[in-house]
């Protein structure tokens, strides 16, 4: 399973709920639906290629990791 972020295109923002359903139907575990147009969650590598074909999906990207230095570091 890989953590992904699906970007929904502007024209489909009003139907983002339906898009989330379509993604679930194709195997995505949906964790969040954000009104600015992002659906986050996870999917298996097998199912991942099928997600981009859902109408209204602008991009499917693997989530990036962000890491700060530890609190005692001088350069933050």
């Amino acid at each position, binding site marked *: 399973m890989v*953590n992904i*972020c699906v*970007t929904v295109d*502007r024209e489909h923002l009003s139907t983002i709920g339906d898009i989330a359903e379509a993604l679930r139907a194709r195997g995505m575990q949906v*964790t*969040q639906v*954000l*009104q*600015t*147009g*992002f659906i*986050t*969650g996870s999917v298996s590598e097998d199912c991942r290629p099928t997600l981009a074909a859902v109408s209204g999906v*602008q*991009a499917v*990207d693997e*989530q*990036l*990791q*962000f*890491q*700060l*230095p*530890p*609190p005692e570091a*001088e*350069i*933050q």
Partner: protein
Amino acid sequence: MIEPELPAGASIPPEAGSPAGPEAAATTGRYVVVFAEDGYEPASVLGTAGLANVASSRDFHGRAVDAAETAGADATVFDTLGIAVVSASPEQLAALQTAGGGQPVVLSVSPELVHHVLAPADYVHGYRDGVADLAARLDRGAAAAPAAGPAFEDTSQSTWGLQATRTVQSAWSGQGVRVAVLDTGFDAAHPDFAGRSITLQSFVEGEPPQDGHGHGTHCIGTACGPRTPSAGPRYGIAHQAEIFAGKVLSNAGSGTDAGILAGIDWAVAGGCAVVSMSLGADVAQAHPPYTAAGQRALDRGVLLIAAAGNNAQRPQGNFGFVGVPANSPYIMAVGALDQQLAVPYFSARSLPGRGGQVDVAGPGWQVYSSWPMPGRYRSLSGTSMAAPHAAGVAALWAEATGYRGRELWSVLVQEADRLLAPSADVGSGLVIAPQ
């Protein structure tokens, strides 16, 4: 309070002068009059000053104003601009300047100047001098600052960063402006923030918004700290802004797109004008979700600001690169400066290509700010410290101008102090607060 003088050498010297040379500009003998925009009819104002023969751009019905046709007039009015060029006696000028009886009808009266194409010889000399100067600077070494002059310093009254950005003398406070800082959360019990409007939200599963790292409290301090802290110097810019502290990084300092995008979504829905993100991933390609998020935020009047990144090792010849999310074309990337307004060794340089530019710079070396209790205060360095300076200054401009989104981005860039450091490192320069 006496402020230290601006250090010489780091920014453009005031005597740089005009490229056209030392002679005073020639004038035509006429005057350019700027009228207030609130409904004063320029022609009637001119009439009360004794200027009756007035040509107006409206008379040309969409054609350009023809100078031959207006040559005989006392005044030509450019209606769309609310500006007129007039031939007037000193008495008529005096009458114009005092028109309106106390109401600001005429904003300015200035001599009409003669303009010239820049003489080719002057341009080429200027270019040659510029190349020679640049070559000399490069010869001094990759990490060289401009000639060392006096540096800004923390005083008992204020941090060097607030002096450099001219925040100390700013009349603005960020009142009425909501500023979101997406980071490790906030120590809401910090004594310096008693009585402030603070909205806290965690987007990190299993962790409350309380800051268990320190980074978030430090950044919120810089952006929004109080005018008069409980102890020590002032370290915060938008001291009356409404604080939205979104925890998108865990107490261990880690986060993912899911949490950060949720934080952005929350800040946009919550009516924040500015969102400060002192976080990044060392990925050179712009990440599509942040490109979309930045653009959609701007469309809704929200300016996203992010740290450029600390992945440079300039003394070793590694200039680093602007990472995600700062390298999104629609997110403002902030580089770091030290007390001499030079670029510290770690501050990331612009990537070639769209979005990867450093847009502006802010104080990012030995920045004193708030820290979770019982520590209370701490000095840190990083582009993480520069970004909240830009965010705090943005909040002041948002209050001062009413601008949001793209217009707010523009005013920050326009009003930045241009520096001698390369734009690849500092963009348009050091962010400066409205006065």
